[in-house]
Every structure is written in structure tokens, then in C-alpha cells.
């Protein structure tokens, strides 16, 4: 506790000084931010462990709770446990055998022979934290979720690899070479940012159909592999690399491919990591385009699979939430491992 106080009280001026009100305001602001950012995620994770009925109950609880059930001798099924107030004012934990109208017939688990009749407003369910893990296990068993997962993984990994490769090649060309129309080409690439996917959906769909790629994962991977954002991001980063390095490599008899692959690519790593994170998130969360070109269940990606839980008449919220968590986890992990690249600056380039 003392250590915590010291940690919180530490200021740049030196240890042991009391917090200034601006520090308290900063912490409060930051704490508010944390709640704002992580509150919904936390709620999602907790809710994913709730049973279907617990999800619908009002008022909602943050933690996944479930009523305790006990097995009572002489009863075929486990019975729900209640805390009942008896007419004599004593409080007892009783299991409910059945409910008739406003009266519940209850039994004491300790004395299975003795039954009680309790008005339903005189009893309260006994609850404990219970994780409804079947939300996770059921869909994995019942639906082809592993299939969707592997499809999503394949799309994400392959598409990201292709994106990094071809975008960096385009960026290299636009950053390193001098040629007529270079600026126009760059502007054209950036200009495509202004065209929303809904506009090109139909023409691209026609192309994909012509190529016979419908219901193939390549139909998801290929059309989006070249991204203007990626080209622009990498080009801007490559422009900051010292030209001397490229010329030094030319003097060192490196071919253009070697300059690209062995000099520029390793030095562009921070920007590539950023693009990789973007690409992974785009591809993992992509919905509209896969929905258009993937119509068979066996080629569904996770996002399309998730949508299957949302029926026209009813939504299986407990499964939907659990599978949303499963879907979120990989992206979150990727971000945890790669985020340091985002914050890594240019680093030393060996130049003075």
C-alpha cells in the first residue's frame, strides 16, 4: 500500500511530494478514458459468459450470474435454490419443486421429506457467478466455426502478405524512381481512396465472376490486396530513407531488386508493421465484400459465420457474443505484439 502511494505520489520534482490537483485531474481524466474504452469490451466479455436467460434479465448484471441448483434426494431433476422467508419470519434456503400460480412448492435440501408452500414474492433466487462456457463450446461443436476460423486465418494471412509485398513494391517505385508522370501516378493512387467500396462492388463482382472465383477465398483476397492507404503510407516512409543508402547500394553492385529487398524493405519495417496491423484488422473484420462473393457455408469467414447467428426472427445473443469474443481475440493479440512497431520511431539510420 505504501509502495502504491509512493508510485501514485511520485512526481518529476522528486518523490514524496503530495499530488497537485492537476495530477488528480489527469488521473481522473485518464481513468475515465480507460472506462470509456474498455468498459464495453469488458461488458462484452462478461456477457459472453451469460446464459441466454441471464442476458435478457432486468436489471442487467455485469458479472455472469446463474441461479444455484441442487440435487435433492427423491427428485429426478436438479432443483433451483431460493432463499425463502417463511411465515414465522425465519429465512431458509429451499429448493423449488414446482410453482403453482403465486405459490411455490419448496423443499429443504437438508430434509427432503419436508415440503413448504411459499408465496413467490417471499423467495429470492440464490445466485453465484457461473460461466456459461457452453456459449463457447456449443457453437464450436454445432456450427462449422473452426472451418470459418481457418478460412478467416487463411484470408488474413495470405492477403496481408500479398498486400505488404505489392504495396511496398508500388511504394518503392513511387518513392525511389524518377519518371515522367510520377506525381500523376501517386495522385491517382491516392485518389482511389475517395471511391467507396459500394461503388465498385458490382463491377468488381462481375470481374470476379468472369474469373470464376466466386465462392473461392481468393475472391476475397485478391481484389483488396492493393490498397491506396498502404501504398501512400509506405511511400511516405520510404521518402524519409536517405537517398545515399540507395546510391551506396547501387555502388555496391546491388540489383534494383536487391536494393528493394535487402536495403529498403528492412528499413521500412516500422511502416510495414503498421500496414500489417491495418491489413490484418481490415481483412479480419471485412464483411460486405465476403458476404457478396462467398455464398457457401464451407468458404464462410468468421464475420459471415457470425452473421448466421443473427436470424431474421431471433438472434442467439449468447452465441453471438461468445463468438464475437473469439473473433476479437486474435486481432487484439496481433495488436499487443505489433503495437511497439507503431510507436517505434525511425530509429538510427546509421547516418549522421
Amino acid at each position, binding site marked *: 500500500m505504501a509502495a502504491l502511494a509512493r508510485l501514485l505520489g511520485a512526481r518529476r520534482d522528486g518523490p514524496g511530494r503530495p499530488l497537485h490537483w492537476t495530477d488528480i485531474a489527469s488521473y481522473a481524466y485518464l481513468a475515465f478514458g480507460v472506462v470509456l474504452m474498455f468498459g464495453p469490451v469488458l461488458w462484452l466479455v462478461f456477457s459472453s459468459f451469460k446464459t441466454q436467460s441471464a442476458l435478457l434479465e432486468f436489471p442487467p448484471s455485469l458479472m455472469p450470474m446463474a441461479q444455484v441448483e441442487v440435487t435433492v434426494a427423491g427428485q429426478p431433476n436438479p432443483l433451483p435454490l431460493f432463499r425463502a422467508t417463511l411465515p414465522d419470519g425465519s429465512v431458509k434456503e429451499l429448493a423449488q419443486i414446482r410453482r403453482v400460480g403465486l405459490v411455490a412448492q419448496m423443499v429443504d435440501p437438508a430434509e427432503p421429506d419436508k415440503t413448504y408452500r411459499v408465496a413467490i414474492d417471499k423467495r429470492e433466487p440464490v445466485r453465484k457467478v457461473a460461466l456459461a462456457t457452453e456459449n463457447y463450446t456449443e457453437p464450436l461443436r454445432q456450427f462449422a466455426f473452426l472451418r470459418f476460423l481457418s478460412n478467416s486465418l487463411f484470408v488474413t494471412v495470405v492477403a496481408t502478405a500479398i498486400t505488404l509485398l505489392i504495396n511496398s513494391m508500388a511504394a518503392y517505385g513511387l518513392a525511389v524512381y524518377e519518371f515522367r508522370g510520377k506525381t500523376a501516378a501517386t495522385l491517382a493512387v491516392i485518389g482511389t481512396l475517395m471511391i467507396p467500396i459500394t461503388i465498385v462492388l458490382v463491377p468488381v463482382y462481375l470481374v470476379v465472376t468472369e474469373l470464376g472465383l466466386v465462392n473461392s477465398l481468393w475472391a476475397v483476397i485478391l481484389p483488396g490486396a492493393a490498397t491506396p492507404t498502404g501504398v501512400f503510407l509506405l511511400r511516405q516512409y520510404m521518402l524519409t530513407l536517405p537517398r*545515399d543508402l540507395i546510391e551506396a547500394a547501387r555502388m555496391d553492385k546491388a540489383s534494383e531488386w536487391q536494393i528493394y529487398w535487402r536495403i529498403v524493405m528492412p528499413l521500412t519495417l516500422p511502416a510495414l508493421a503498421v500496414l500489417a496491423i491495418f491489413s490484418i484488422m481490415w481483412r479480419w473484420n471485412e464483411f460486405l465484400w465476403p458476404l457478396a462473393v462467398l455464398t457457401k457455408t464451407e468458404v464462410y469467414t468468421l464475420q459471415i459465420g457470425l452473421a448466421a447467428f443473427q436470424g431474421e426472427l431471433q438472434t442467439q445473443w449468447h452465441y453471438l457474443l461468445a463468438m464475437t469474443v473469439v473473433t476479437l481475440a486474435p486481432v487484439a493479440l496481433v495488436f499487443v505484439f505489433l503495437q511497439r512497431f507503431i510507436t517505434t520511431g525511425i*530509429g538510427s539510420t546509421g547516418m549522421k
Partner: protein
Amino acid sequence: MADLKLTGARKAFGAVDVLHGIDLEVKDGEFVVFVGPSGCGKSTLLRVIAGLEMVSAGEVHIDGERVTHLPASDRGLAMVFQSYALYPHMTVARNMAFALENMRLPKAEIDARVKRAAEMLRLTDYLDRKPKALSGGQRQRVAIGRAIVRDPKIFLFDEPLSNLDAELRVATRKELAALHAELGGTMIYVTHDQVEAMTLADRIVVLRAGRIEQVGAPLDLYNRPANAFVAGFIGSPRMNLLPATVIADDGTLRLRLGAREIAVPQATRGLRAGSAVTLGIRPEHIALAPDGGGQLDLTVDLVEQLGSEALVYAGHAGLPQITLRLDGQSRLARGATIPVRFSPDHIHLFDTDGLALPRP
């Protein structure tokens, strides 16, 4: 090892002419220094030789072979950049081996060459380090090592010492000279520092505004500058260039210098009376004349004591400030009037175009 020949090399960037037809021959094993003020085109000339820029007109020959349109990677030259341009993601050993790997040499040969260069440059202990873990001087040596392992036809240096501190610069300069003596390769070196040029070069090429002003051995340039620009550029402190008017040139040349008339006891050049000339005299060739025989009276503005010598900056009405270099330590005070005499054998004369008037 190879020789180099440039004929009428021109380079224009858009509408801007940077090189106006350079003719130059560099012999095998020669150490040539390009020197000139910023923007004179010396770096561009080096890049043209390297193949990093292509000439707009003219020819480049290396070893008798026409390489005018050959890209840098095929010319077989090595270059040390001003920024060193070490590959930051590679270790010192990999930096040096990179070119050899591109040349597809066998691994054993690469290792042997890197090891030899590292020993020569005292880098053996640093082979596994990345450039950012090296000091400036060590990075410099890696950059040189990267050139040495190649065994190139010509070494090109683009202001390699300008990022080092003064002390290290002097040390590295000596090492470079020793390296040239040891390797014996053809080296072309670009600098704006005339001291580097004087100390390193077999021959100096002085450039100004894309043209060669003079080519020659350092002392030739120092003793017989072809024009006022070279005279002013080579030598530190710079040569005093004083405007003068010819009074008469009959046997002895008599000049009006400020308010005074001085006689230059040199054979006649046949100058017309009244024509304007520039008189050039180096600071060490002006002597104090305390006991008569002074040609000019100067008023001391500033004295810089360097211990072994003193630099005196002094003025005379109608003339630019004159620098004197006096041996030992000077007791002159600001404002003192000193009579001075010019060493007659060391007077340079330049015409109105700045060209040196030939000594008879």
C-alpha cells in the same frame, strides 16, 4: 586500378547547367582532389564519374573503356559518402560483405577480404556491431572498409571527413594518405576544404561554377595560381588581393596601390600605363620594415596570436583589409601603424579578367 578520362562532360538539371564541359584525365594510381566552394559542381562531377548521374553531353572513359551510359553498378567503382551511408540494419561485417555478396564471390573469399580490410582499419573488434553502436570515426572507417574490400577500379570520396570533429579529421586525413600509399589505387576525393586538398592530393582540380579553373600539383597551384580565384582559394589564410593601377612598366613595374606608389622589381610585362591590375601577395610574404624601406603603411585592426605565429589584420586607406603572417609572437597593438614590405619574388599580378599575368 584504372585511369579515368572525361571529355566535354556536361550536366544540366532541367534548365540549370551544373557542369559546363569538363575535360580531365586522371592517371592510374593518382590521388586527385576536386576542390571548390559550395555549389561549384564538384559533387556532381564525382557523381557523374560514379554513374549516379549521367552526363548530358560528353564522354566518360575508365581504363580506356567508354562507360558514359553504364549505370553505377556496372562501373566497378567504390564510393565513400559524406553521410557514410552505412546500412543501419546490417552489422559492420555484413556492411562490408554486401557488395561482395552482390558480386557472387565465394563465402571464404568474402570472409578473407572482410577480415583483411577490418585488420587494416582496426575494425576487427567491431565486426558484429551495428553502425549505430559505433563512433563517428569508426563509421567513417567502415565506410572506407566497404570500399576497400571491393578492390575497385577507382575510389571515390565525397567529403568524407566533413562530419568528423577537427582532431579526428586531422588523424583520418593522415590515415587516408597512408592508405593511398599502401593500396596505391586511383582515388578521387571531393572537398571544400583546401587544407585537405593540399595535404592529400597528388593533383588538385579547382572548380568554380561548373568549370575547371586550374589543375595541378598542390604546390604548383600555391606558387603559380592561374587566376585570382585559385589564388584566393588555395592557401590559408587567403592571399591578399589588392586593386592597383599601373603607373609605368619600363624596366621596373611601378604600381599605384592606395595612396602609395610601389615598385615591383620584375622584368617588364609590357603593361600599359593606367591599366588596372590586381596585386596578389600571400600573408607570409609581407614583412615588417621597421628600419626604413617600407612600401606601405598599415594600421593594425586585429592581431590573432597562434603561439607559433601571429596573424595581423591591418588596413590602408583605399585598400581591402590586408592579412600578414608573422613568425613567433607579435607585440603589435591595435591601432599601431606599421610599415611593411612585399617580398618581390612572391608578388602575383592578375589582369582585369582575373587571369594571372605570366611571369616573364
